[in-house]
């Protein structure tokens, strides 16, 4: 009898486990910086305390490996429930059918908290995340680039430190003077096959009125506006105002160089300001930050950012969506996450308050009003991720190294882009 009772009790214990089972949300987080990881761990602990029936398992996948990991998981299985993603590839994964829409979760969340979630997302991000009338991503952070310049080097070169370059041509002229009259290079301008190259150059070509796509949806860069922009950008290399190896150096070496005092100017993200303070650079108090220069058509900043997305393969979509909204909304963990990791939040209402309304973030927040995607004014296209890897960078590199003229590089570039679009 006792034996039977024991068996029955054991069976009851075993079969009662599913009733107590928690939903597990696997979350791929791409940053490897300690401050970010700590911030995410705190947000997860907070979420799990509020939702005892959900476990969030964070896996660190470095940004440099995320594309390989995601594509591998897509083709062989093993996708997470939730992941970060670059804003420019949301359309790519949405087109593949790998993402699940968040529209209904936005609506429910907005109803619960009494506001319109979609209206709180930056207008530029809307073009990336709202596709075909559905929301496919929830903005976590936005990013744009501003011009950092060293007042002490401007002064040493006989330039007015209170008058930063207003146009791209002014910037190159100022860089020439600084390179000539000081020991520093005027401008940390990358010309290599690196994301930073395109992230710099897109502000130049958009401000010259060039468009990535024409009305027919084909390559629109075969234009005088683009050729002028390309010639102007590469003239910085030809004039020797950037590093002689700029056409082959990785982007992070330019950042390192600016922090080490090798350059007078760099167009970069907010994080470099924190790096200057943390490293105690002796010229840190001489660094000013202003919006990027303008071109003939105005000022166009780079619009970067990364959202959280819900993968369609998830078997715990409701729990995963709850985690996404907790991490990306002001009433959840977004403020703490943003402050601790030094990023600008993907929520406009949050970015209007402290600390983003004060230096140095206020410059970046103001710049966001003029920040656009590469394909501005067109909608996001699924092929942008493929183009961003190297098509435009190759054209820049070829012209910089004298391997192609501006005309030749432009023709080849459009052939490459049209080939990608035609697949």
């Amino acid at each position, binding site marked *: 009898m006792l034996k039977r009772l024991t068996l029955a009790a054991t069976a009851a214990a075993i079969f009662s486990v599913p009733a107590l089972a928690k939903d597990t949300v696997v979350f791929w987080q791409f940053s490897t910086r300690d401050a970010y990881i700590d911030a995410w761990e705190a947000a997860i602990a907070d979420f799990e305390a509020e939702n005892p029936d959900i476990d969030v398992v964070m896996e660190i996948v470095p940004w440099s490996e995320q*594309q*390989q990991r995601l*594509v591998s998981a897509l083709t062989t299985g093993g996708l997470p429930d939730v992941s970060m993603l670059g804003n420019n590839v949301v359309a790519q994964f949405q087109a593949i059918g790998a993402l699940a829409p968040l529209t209904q979760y936005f609506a429910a969340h907005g109803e619960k908290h009494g506001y319109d979630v979609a209206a709180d997302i930056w207008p530029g991000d809307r073009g990336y995340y709202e596709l075909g009338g559905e929301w496919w991503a929830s903005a976590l952070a936005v990013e744009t680039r501003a011009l950092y310049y060293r007042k002490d080097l401007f002064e040493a070169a006989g330039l007015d430190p209170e008058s930063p370059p207003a146009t791209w041509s002014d910037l190159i002229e100022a860089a020439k003077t600084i390179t000539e009259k000081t020991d520093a290079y005027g401008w940390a301008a990358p010309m290599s096959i690196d994301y930073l190259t395109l992230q710099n150059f897109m502000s130049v070509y958009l401000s010259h009125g060039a468009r990535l796509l024409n009305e027919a949806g084909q390559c629109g860069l075969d234009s005088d506006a683009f050729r002028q922009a390309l010639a102007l950008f590469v003239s910085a290399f030809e004039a020797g105002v950037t590093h*002689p190896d700029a056409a*082959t150096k990785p982007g992070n070496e330019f950042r390192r160089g600016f922090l080490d005092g090798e350059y007078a100017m760099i167009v970069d993200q907010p994080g470099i300001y924190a790096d200057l303070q943390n490293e105690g650079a002796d010229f840190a108090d001489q660094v000013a930050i202003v919006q990027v220069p303008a071109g003939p058509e105005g000022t166009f900043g780079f619009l970067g950012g990364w959202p959280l997305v819900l993968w369609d393969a998830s078997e715990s979509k409701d729990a995963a969506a709850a985690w996404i909204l907790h991490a990306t909304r002001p009433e959840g963990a977004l403020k703490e996450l943003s402050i601790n990791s030094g990023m600008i939040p993907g929520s406009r209402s949050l970015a209007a308050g402290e600390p983003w309304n004060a230096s140095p973030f206020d410059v970046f927040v103001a710049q966001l009003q003029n920040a656009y995607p590469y394909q501005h004014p067109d909608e996001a296209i699924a092929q942008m991720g*493929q183009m961003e*890897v190297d098509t435009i960078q*190759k054209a820049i590199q070829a012209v910089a190294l004298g391997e192609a003229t501006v005309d030749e590089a432009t023709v080849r570039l459009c052939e490459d882009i049209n080939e990608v679009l035609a697949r």
Partner: protein
Amino acid sequence: MRALSKLDFYPYWLLLPAVIVAILVAIAPLIYGFVLSLHDWYLLRSPVPTWAGLANYRELLTDEDFWLAFARTWFWTLGTVVVEFAIGIPLALLLNRDTAVAKAVSAFILMPWVTPFIVVAYGWRFLLDSELGLLHGLLETASLAGDRSILADPLGALVMVTFISGWKGVPFVVIAMLAALKSIPAELYEAAEIDGAGRRQRFRFVTLPALRNTAVVIGLILGILAFYSFDLVWIMTRGGPVDSTTIVGISIYQTFFADLRPSYAATISSVMLAVLLVAALLTLRLRRAEA
């Protein structure tokens, strides 16, 4: 005729686990790769592969970028092996001498081989930097580089990364050749000396023939390794400047992960495997014919 007993099958049972592992780890992915190459799978167009027959192979035949990468890969592979042997054999001969210097150097000879690619790549980038690089200064003095790093010159970059690839593989050649040198019986040299052979003749008629078998096998292994290289070039040049160092390993990577075309990447891999197989068989057959 004797009936087969259980004992006759015993060796096959012992081999079975290894055969299963080999099939799962090596053969199955190759078959899967080949089957995939017969499909059309562009992730942006279709979430699953669809049958396409030989369409990918037909496309490959007219893919100019692939054939350029293919040619570069042969330059890279042969160049790597040549550098490995050109430096490795003399080093092995030096280390084969019983001197204090040889013993001391032996301890360091493995350094390039055991150093991770990432460290090697950044180390060489630093050496070739146009402002700080020690080697750049030497190349500039020898008029082999201008104001910019040699990595900014398309031909110079290909030659330099090939040299670095060879340099990294030198220790493998040294160790293998040293082992082969140690196994040459001293009597052979003594006999040759008695027959009046000088140093050069002893090297030509005793040492070289004794090294040949090892050299062929080692050359084949290192050639295969070089043929599928990716890490070193990717870290140092990302295939640039202007595609000048885009070898097939990089093409496969870009086709799969950037262009999102797994089946076309599998087609390139299958063709490379076939080419490598033919090259390896020819090499071995040539060797047997010589023997």
